[in-house]
């Protein structure tokens, strides 16, 4: 396969509850893993894109500071955000800038150091993620938004709490194999079913957790990519969409329509369909999110997502392996860093570097990264 823009390097830090280092140091660790082996120096990089969710940053306008620490000044740097999908929005921007011919090599770094906020500050931020005039005054939260979709899916299709829990069982298993994951304990169905209810029907183990971390994706034009690496991973399709911030203004409570839209764009651009995907990373901020992703990305028909996990078809040796690195549920969710981490996993899968969770002969991979409650989905398809 070939394309016009390729990922030439991808890296991430360990995701952890409290990293104990500064944001610039965290970003450097991710950049180092991505750039190692590429034989590039700062002068070869044309631009830097920084992705994070600013409400969790203490540092105002961090792009220049990170550029300074990486030695990339005076090359242009800028900051971009779509909350939890900021990282893949950064990848999309890098793709566009390279495809346009403006730049040849771009470094994209996503980060979040959520431990800089006290739990009181984090609870305050959590209350402002929905329409602050007409939703937040009622006490909406991110788990509540996804719980509304879970309840509607259960009512319409008979989806059960056990089926949701089975997503976590899978992701906890693969998280136990991932040295970069925050949570490395295997969980049983009982562990999950017996955990505290956060927002019914979602329990503690149906939810991902805040974390600190950074990830880095380095992209290049076709010419530069071939010079710098033997294993370029081509960007074949890119799709994005936006849903209404008010859940009540949306057309469905059982599907994220914006994800369907983003997927359609990405599949059309790549000339591929869901049946062509060998391995996928989807945005499992909650167990229900992974089930909805199966359906919205076309891996399962509407209402049949739960059957995929029941039949273990999303394990690494199944029909369509999903989140076989542990997903957000095990890795933790350092908001701006998540998209780059998903890209890194797909790059490693397509290069055959995943060891025990390697999907046999993976040629085409998909990343699905979503900001908010189904609000800002990005779908990117990669091929080797």
């Amino acid at each position, binding site marked *: 396969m070939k394309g016009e823009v390729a990922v030439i390097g991808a890296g991430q830090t360990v995701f952890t509850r409290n990293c104990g280092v500064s944001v610039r140091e965290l970003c450097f660790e991710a950049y180092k893993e991505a750039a190692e082996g590429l034989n590039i120096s700062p002068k070869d990089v044309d631009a830097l894109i920084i992705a994070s969710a600013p409400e969790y940053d203490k540092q105002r306008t961090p792009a220049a500071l990170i550029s300074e620490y990486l030695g990339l000044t005076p090359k242009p740097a800028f900051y971009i955000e779509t909350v939890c999908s900021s990282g893949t929005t950064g990848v999309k921007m890098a793709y566009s800038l390279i495809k346009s011919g403006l730049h040849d090599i771009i470094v994209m770094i996503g980060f979040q150091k959520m431990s800089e906020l006290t739990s009181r500050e984090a609870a305050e931020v959590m209350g402002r993620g929905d329409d602050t*005039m007409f939703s937040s*005054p*009622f*006490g*909406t939260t991110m788990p509540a938004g996804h719980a509304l*979709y879970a309840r509607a899916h259960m009512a319409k299709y008979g989806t059960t709490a056990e089926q949701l829990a089975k997503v976590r069982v899978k992701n906890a298993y693969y998280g136990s194999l991932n040295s970069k994951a925050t949570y490395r304990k295997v969980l049983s169905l009982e562990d999950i079913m017996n955990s505290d209810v*956060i*927002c019914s029907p979602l329990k503690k183990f149906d939810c991902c957790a805040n974390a600190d971390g950074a990830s880095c994706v380095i992209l290049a034009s076709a010419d530069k990519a071939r010079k710098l690496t033997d294993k370029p991973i081509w960007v074949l399709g890119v799709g994005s969409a936006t849903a209404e911030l008010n859940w*009540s203004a949306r057309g469905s409570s059982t599907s994220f329509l914006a994800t369907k839209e983003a997927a359609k764009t990405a599949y059309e651009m790549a000339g591929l369909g869901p049946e062509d995907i060998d391995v996928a990373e989807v945005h499992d901020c909650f167990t229900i999110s992974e089930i909805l992703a199966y359906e919205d990305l076309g891996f399962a028909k509407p209402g049949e997502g739960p059957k995929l996990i029941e039949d273990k078809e999303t394990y690494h040796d199944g029909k369509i392996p999903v989140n076989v690195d542990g997903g957000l549920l095990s890795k933790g969710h350092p908001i701006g860093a998540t998209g780059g981490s998903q890209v890194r996993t797909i790059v490693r899968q397509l290069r055959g570097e995943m060891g025990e969770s390697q999907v046999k002969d993976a040629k085409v991979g998909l990343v699905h990264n979503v900001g908010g409650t189904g609000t800002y989905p990005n779908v990117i398809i990669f091929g080797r």
Partner: protein
Amino acid sequence: MDFGNFGTVSFTKQAKVMPFIDYLSQGKVMTTQCKHCGRKFFPPRQDCPYCLSSDVEWFEIKSKGKLLTYTTVNYGPSGFEDVSPYTLGIVEFSEGVRVLARISKKIAPKDIKVGMELKVVPVKLSDEKLSYDFET
């Protein structure tokens, strides 16, 4: 009276759609419809993006609607410590709008079912702030 008087925690005071608050204080939950294209909006808005018109009229949401989905929130954000747990729901009304609000604590959680009929009712919160709940 402005949007600062609306909801358990409010973030905005002023808006063009201030009649929403005035109507709520009079015991009515009202929203807007574009006078040109007839589109109905919730949340209420003063501006129609399809006609670029700001000519809207207000109508009351008074039917019994259908509960599309709900969740009981055990851990709320800042400012909701005293009201947790509470149940959020989305109701679809025959007036052609969907509304998000809390389901009244008068309804026992075990009696809440997707598909049940609910109406939207203005309520005064403990600190005299205005809001609305879903009730049977």
